[in-house]
């Protein structure tokens, strides 16, 4: 059937979806840091566990579990491959751009909801520092979550504005914020004005 020749996502996504790397299968994995992000109500949740070489602060292993769609599974899998062997400082900076680059590409509407692996990783790195009493190394994300349903922060709103969002609808379209319970709408409208003023005012 010719319709089956192409797939819903890229070949790289398919590869990670079919052969996910570094899935956490052990029930008693002894991690050095653990991060859990997402929200099952919204359809995606990710758990990331890391092992760290304490002498070099380098990630020696990264395991994960994901509840979510194909792009959520593939993006967490791709992220785990990227960060193994990486110094923590560098791994902390891994973002959706690097992950989606490793996957060829993802549909725009999938990026904010399914590429959460990097957030889970940062949570795991912070957890590692905390467990080891290195509180000075813990970097709380500067960003503040505005939309709790879709995990959209003020920084992402600012980024969306810089990328061209000019109206609340466009903001929703780009970030998917305020599309579930809608409680953050007023704040979103206010931030939209603030960032428009800041960058284009």
């Amino acid at each position, binding site marked *: 059937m010719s319709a089956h020749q192409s797939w819903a996502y890229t070949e790289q996504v398919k590869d990670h979806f079919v052969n996910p790397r570094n899935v956490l299968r052990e029930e008693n994995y002894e991690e050095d840091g653990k991060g859990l992000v997402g929200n099952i109500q919204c359809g995606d949740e990710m758990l990331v566990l890391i092992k760290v070489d304490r002498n070099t602060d380098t990630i020696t292993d990264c395991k994960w579990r994901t509840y979510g*769609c194909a792009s*959520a599974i593939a993006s967490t899998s791709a992220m785990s491959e990227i960060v193994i062997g990486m110094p923590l400082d560098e791994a902390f900076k891994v973002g959706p751009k690097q992950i989606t680059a490793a996957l060829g590409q993802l549909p725009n509407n999938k990026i904010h909801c399914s590429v959460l692996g990097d957030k889970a990783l940062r949570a795991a790195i912070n957890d590692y520092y905390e467990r080891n009493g290195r509180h000075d190394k813990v970097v709380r994300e500067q960003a503040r979550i505005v939309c709790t349903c879709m995990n959209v922060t003020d920084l992402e709103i600012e980024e969306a504005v810089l990328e061209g969002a000019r109206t609340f609808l466009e903001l929703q379209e780009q970030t998917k914020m305020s599309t579930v319970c809608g409680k953050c709408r007023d704040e979103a409208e206010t931030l939209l004005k603030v960032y428009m003023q800041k960058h284009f005012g």
Partner: protein
Amino acid sequence: MTQRQVYLDNNATTPLHPEVQKALIDALPLFGNPSSMHGYGREARSKTEEAREKIAAFIGALPEEIIFTGSGSEANNTVLSITGCPATECSCDRGQRTHIVTTTIEHPCVLETSGCLSGRGTPVTYIPVDQYGIVDMDALRASITDHTGVVSVMMANNEIGTIQNIKELAKLAHEKGAWFHTDAVQAVGKVPINVRDLDVDFLTLSAHKIYGPKGIGALYVKRGVPFCPLIRGGHQERGRRAGTENTLGVIGLGKAVEMRSLEMAEESLRFHAMKEALRKGIEDLIPDVRFNGHPDQSLASTLNVSFAGAEGESILLYLDLEGIAVSTGSACASGSLDPSHVLLATGVPVEQAHGSIRISMGRENTMTDVDYLLDKLPGIIARIRDMSTVYRRK
């Protein structure tokens, strides 16, 4: 080796019936405009009317009560727009009766049209359903007032297959002087329908759900019921739907209906057996599942099931890699963010709604397809659950 292909998404659309395909190919050269008086036109007209008669007979209507539309969605839009129309001194004017009553599990073409009309001032009431998707009769009775213009309830739900007691619902509407419309797109050709017996004023049907071509639907409008076109500017369909007739589509729909009348009775027994085998197989082979929709009062060809800890788009895509086509109520696959409004309306928890798939059988499916699905599905669910943050083997 070619991979086995099993199409189990017949509620989304169906493959053309070979006889329909033949009829369409035969009709391809027929280009005349049915409105023309010359031979070309007369031939197109006669084929169009022949199809109209078949369709009318199939649902117990008169030919002049059938209006061809571009889709089921258009037919539904048409009915709601009549009620929501604020015009007075128009053939559709119903005085104060502008209120629309519908349900929470309708197709988006009903819900969004109602929502749009509501935004323009038309009062709309959405009746809830129970855990099986059956419309709350008491709530419906209570919501119909002297201002209610139309009560619109789908006959069989596209996602969970639940079938409403349309005859009783229509009676309730009529007792209060409201018109009754049923979106029967998923029911026509699957369960016997007689519009006189059901006593409905409007009924929507679509060709591509019954092995006919896409882009053609029909609206039954009971004789004497006020009507106003949605598409204006032509005398076609007795002035009720402008636009040169989709002759080819109409012929395809006519043939599709004809084939349904020959095949649907035998098929229903087969679907019952297949659905039971599917239900039992899934229950026996996979833990923590939940079947959605009514256990008996539902389409024999539709089975909706949720898997705890497994997200629907992943299930769909792993099945797709095995050549099996189903659909999901998960938000991820639909491009929206909320999972199926139908499942949520029946009280399915959000997580279970994300983890649902709909298996909808068609005339080409056999028990071998059921076996193939049952062979692949348990492994896929286990594999997804193995990766899941929320599901652990017990």
